């Protein structure tokens, strides 16, 4: 069982600088997008459940930026970050949160069901752990067709306690499926701490049960995430073997918009402690030390993504609701009943 905490890549090259800038922009975009989504939710513009990704940005960005356009990405219901990192335009994601016809699921899915078939983004699933076999199924299809794509699946650590996780990982390993299972361990399933839900505290050890390579990874350091996911993706693409990655991360906000950031199940101090290893701060500091970012550069980048988020917000707000006839559309395939 390997444990990754430090990047192996040299960071002085121009390539690394460009890559870091790309990471920073993606993470800032997700952060600002989620802040705006939280604001919109409070104003009643977003309904239902809304699970924000603030604090976990390095996971989605580090994991997805290295994928090929024809790979598959499947996620759970805290998936705004992955959707944006995969390249679904902020306008389409925000419009979906608003339930508008211009949303990436045409207003039929909402916050928990973001889809983009063209980007291989297979959801957006609201039943804990249910999408892990689905992602394994996409990997099965890749192998069936003799392709070299990879199916990447994101899920929270609480999903590692449900049967679907175990059944999917067993078959993925048994059949050598090209899948990467990314367990985002943010410490809590809703308000239940890992220690109160799992017999093992290090979830990556569960790879042993399925003879699957596994790593525990620092999920706050985007470069470390990228390195670990690159290794797993290479294993899937070249050897058609699955990997389980446990990415240690933390969500600053409540489980959903209807629950406080701290109070009953964790303390304010704990949240503040984790904020010190904020993934955006961590990367920005590294870039400053390398001389590739200064305050003005950071401010400009932040202003740029904020403008993009404002544009998405305005777009979502001015977009039309789905046509009333959409109610009965897409229940069955065209021509069916």
């Amino acid at each position, binding site marked *: 069982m390997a444990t990754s905490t430090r990047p192996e890549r040299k960071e002085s090259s121009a390539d690394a600088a460009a890559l870091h800038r790309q990471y920073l922009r993606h993470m800032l975009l997700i952060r600002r997008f989620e802040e705006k989504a939280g604001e919109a939710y409070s104003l009643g513009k977003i309904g239902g459940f809304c699970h924000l990704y603030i604090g976990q940005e390095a996971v989605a960005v580090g994991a997805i930026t290295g994928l090929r356009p024809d790979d598959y990405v499947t996620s759970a219901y805290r998936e705004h970050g992955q959707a944006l990192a995969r390249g679904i335009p902020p306008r389409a994601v925000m419009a979906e949160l608003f339930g508008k016809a211009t949303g990436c699921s045409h207003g*039929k899915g909402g916050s928990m*069901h973001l889809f983009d078939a063209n980007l291989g983004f297979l959801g957006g699933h609201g039943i804990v752990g249910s999408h892990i*076999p689905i992602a394994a199924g*996409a990997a099965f299809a890749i192998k069936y*067709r003799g392709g070299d794509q990879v199916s990447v699946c994101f899920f929270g650590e609480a999903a590692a306690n449900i049967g679907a996780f175990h*059944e*999917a990982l067993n*078959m993925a390993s048994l059949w050598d499926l090209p899948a990467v299972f990314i367990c985002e361990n943010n410490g809590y399933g809703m308000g239940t701490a890992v220690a109160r839900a799992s017999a093992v505290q290090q979830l990556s050890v569960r790879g042993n049960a399925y003879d699957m390579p596994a790593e525990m990874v620092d999920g706050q350091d985007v470069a470390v995430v990228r390195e670990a996911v690159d290794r797993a993706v290479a294993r899937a693409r070249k050897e058609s073997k699955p990997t389980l990655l446990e990415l240690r991360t933390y969500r600053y906000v409540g489980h959903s918009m209807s629950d406080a950031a701290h109070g009953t199940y964790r303390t304010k101090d704990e949240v503040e402690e984790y904020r010190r290893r904020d993934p955006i701060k961590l990367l920005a500091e590294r870039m400053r030390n390398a001389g590739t970012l200064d305050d003005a550069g950071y401010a400009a980048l932040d202003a740029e993504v904020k403008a993009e988020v404002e544009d998405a917000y305005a777009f979502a707000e001015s977009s039309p609701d789905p046509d009333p006839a959409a109610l009965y559309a897409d229940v069955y*395939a065209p021509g*069916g009943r």
Partner: protein
Amino acid sequence: MAVMTYRDALNQALREEMHRDDRVFLMGEEVAEYDGAYKVSRGLLKEFGARRVVDTPIAELGFAGIGVGAAMVGLRPVIEMMTWNFALLAIDQIVNAAAKMRYMSGGQLGVPIVFRGPGGAALQLGAQHSQSFESWYAHVPGLKVVMPATPADAKGLLKSAIRDDNPVIFIEGEMLYNNKGEVPEGEYTTPIGSADIKRPGRDVTFVCHAKTVSVALKAAEQLAAEGVEAEVLDLRTIRPLDIEAILSSVAKTNRCVVVEEGWPFAGVGAEVVDVIQREAFDALDAPIIRVTGADVPMPYNKQLEKAAKADPAKVVAAAKQVLYLA
């Protein structure tokens, strides 16, 4: 016309569709090396190899989900449930994923998949192995539910199910596998959503499906000896329901008995009765009567089990009641 068993007709459908389309594969418990728990997949591993005939661990939820994921990205899985009793473990994938993926993705990602296997009671298998779940699945928008009663329908409907772009729940009859019947030679399909008159009659309509088709036919035979001509309408598909066929039969006979294996509460018959009372109230000369499985878990004891099942005597009695002959 060739005469073959219901089992062999299904086998032929799978074989033909797998030859026709490389995207079609069969996955489930014991489907490959064991040749199928009920031998529906006999010979397929030998013919198509392990890539396309895939044995699974006992993990219904897991392999149902793998089927859903594979279907979302372009394959056409046929997922065998050893029996529909075990599919309860997979119902999250069927209902929460397969049935609504197209809708919640705004039409982007369909799930062309067939979940198939035997349903209903066999003989003395007890409460956990003797259940009819068609009304559960038929309740769910996004699913189609198909239940063939004869070898010819089994083959034609399974071929249609595999070609359908929607998730199809295909419930076979554990007690039907050995039944023989004529099956057309050559290529044919039977359309989903179309009922079939298995015996024409003018006095009373028996609406039935799957195993209860033979129950209704036996009842019709007995009644014919007494001068009553019953029409036996085999639904073949539960969803979408062939409302037109039901209404046109009732318009002719003015009386109806709905027969099903499943439990009475919120059963398939309840839906049929609702449609008839709304659309053909004036055509009815008597209240519709339902003959169902008893509203109990299936008992093991042979006599109790017999008492729990819909049988020809119960259908005859119901027919006499709606004909005011009782």
